[in-house]
């Protein structure tokens, strides 16, 4: 566990707020991409000594979270000629406040969980929890399908961070976490968004509410 971990986590938290606060889709995507890349770095730094395995994992994370998925999102953005604004159900200010509340709650909650000795005092658990909550927040307050995908990315970034706490104990587990990204990458964005775009001539997820009671 190197000293670079906590600063990275702080950055990740900052990005959460950036994503919550920005009104521009592009910025949100870029932010999530950066977050992914940072998590890739984090994977490496969580270990005291740079070993082969974490480095490969980190590289993969950077590749997928930092490049592949954002790339696809951008393409979808281009193809679908989407309106560039984020249209939240709640004002950005409120989102930010909720995000702050979520982060605080996460920190408090993490405190009453007994941490393993080498995670004592580290931000790993709180950061991951708050990132998960932020992801949820974005998922459920942003109109566009594509912003929901961004939210989902944030959510899983949080989970990934949680996974890092276990990487020493059971590396394989963390690695399958990557599969989660493949799921999102391949399906949610690649295919479905394009279909939605074709069928509905827009990817405003708010239109997807014909099925109801």
């Amino acid at each position, binding site marked *: 566990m190197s000293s670079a971990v906590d600063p990275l986590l702080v950055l990740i938290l900052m990005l959460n707020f950036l994503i919550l606060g920005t009104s521009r889709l592009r910025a949100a995507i870029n932010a999530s991409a950066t977050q992914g890349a940072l998590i890739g770095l984090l994977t490496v730094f969580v270990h005291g000594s740079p070993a082969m395995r974490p480095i490969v994992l980190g590289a993969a994370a950077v590749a997928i979270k930092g490049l592949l998925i954002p790339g696809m999102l951008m393409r979808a953005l281009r193809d679908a000629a989407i309106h560039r604004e984020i249209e939240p159900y709640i004002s950005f200010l409120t989102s930010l406040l909720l995000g702050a509340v979520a982060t605080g709650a996460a920190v408090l909650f993490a405190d009453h969980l007994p941490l393993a000795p080498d995670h004592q005092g580290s931000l790993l658990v709180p950061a991951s929890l708050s990132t998960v909550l932020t992801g949820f927040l974005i998922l459920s307050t942003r109109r566009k399908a594509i912003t929901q995908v961004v939210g989902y990315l944030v959510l899983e970034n949080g989970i990934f961070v949680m996974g890092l706490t276990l990487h020493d104990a059971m590396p394989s587990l963390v690695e*399958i976490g990557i599969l989660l990204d493949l799921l999102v990458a391949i*399906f949610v964005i690649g295919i479905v968004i394009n*279909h939605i775009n074709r069928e509905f001539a827009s990817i405003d997820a708010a239109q997807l*509410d014909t*099925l109801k009671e």
Partner: protein
Amino acid sequence: MAIALCVAPLLFALVAWILPSARLRPWIVPLGAGVHLALVVTALALGEPVEAFSGWLALDQLGRIALPLVSVLFAACSLYVPAYLRIRRGERHRIFCGALLAFLAMMTLIILSHHLGLMWVALEANTLVSAPLLYFNRNRRSLEATWKYLLIGSVGIALALLGSFFLAYSALPHASLVIEDLVREARAHALALPWLHTAFVVLFVGYGTKMGLAPMHTWKPDAYGEAPGLVGALLAGGLTTCAFVALLRFYQICAAAGEAAFAQELMVAIGLLSMAVAGVFMARQRDFKRMLAYSSVEHMGILVLGIGVGGLAAFGSLLHLINNALTKGVMFMAAANIHRAYASKTVDGVSGALRRVPVSGALFLAGFFAVTGTPPFGPFVSEFTILRGIVEAGRYGVAAAFLVLLFVVFVGMGGTVLAVVQGTPKGDSPEGGFKDSLGTVGPALVLLAVVVVLGVWVPPALDGALADAARFVEAGK
């Protein structure tokens, strides 16, 4: 053996994918299903334990209930495939057949895997392969359904992963996700309880989303409503079974850690809530496929309620797992036939099914009576056993709520089903006029026969297996 069980369907999926002949392709599915069923039977008959990968895959007492169930259900549904694809000629059979068999493989993997990570991967893969099945109809509605299914399902899966992490963390420094290890740690009280509690809650919500417990059930009516009836049967009978099995594994760990009471409270509450929500939405439900979805929500609630009460009720709920899955198969296939015969799935457009498609109509009616726990059908035995369990546990309030909700559900479902099957047929039958044929009603008839048999005769072998499984879940041996 264990590996064969998972791989065989995949091979057939591959065959179905590359097979050039569109005429033969539909028959690959029943073939694969048959082979899988044969494998399952041999595995059950086999004396020595079925294991692989140093215990990561194993057929335990729980699997001995769930695996044959899934296999039988899939076999019955697969018999429906050729007739169905004959009607849907010239559409993407390739993907459809392949995905179906892959679906079977993943379900098998979930049931067999004793490594929670592996199980999670299988569940995720399962979600992926079911997406094209849902989207088979290729219209806006099915697309929307698929989108919701994927997004909500993915969130559920994500939570499941987070929960798995928590669980593993609770076992630090001996973090592991192999059930046996965790149970051992739990018995030794080496699990950090706060982490365990958090883990269970998160896992309950995550897998509960896949299982379709209220209020995480929201994807269900859309998905079941828009998917082909056959796929609906597999989701309602197969996927939910797998998710339930997964849930039971975590419950097992909690029980081993002496935290059963904590988990049970959760299950009872969510179980009753699911039944209530189902009841509310089934009342005056116009769309009979959505109605089936809510019925599925209700029965998921009954299942967790039974486990939550424990004892005899747990036994009953394992029995109910079987009965519910098979009955759902009957109802979804019958509903699919009626849907096709009227080109509508709402009571505004459908009535007098008993006259236009007599067999399917009768099957739908019989399925309704069966699923609402009427003798002499199987679900009666299981629901009554659960009730006895609740009363024996002295939880009279729960018993009262259980019965009242059963009645509410019956009222709602009865109104819709009778409106569908009785009366004089509305409108004239659409193009070509769909008629009952052996291919479309045969599978449902087979399943119904099984359900009736389970209602009047629970084979001692099955009875023993259920008892073992109940003990296994509650006491971990």
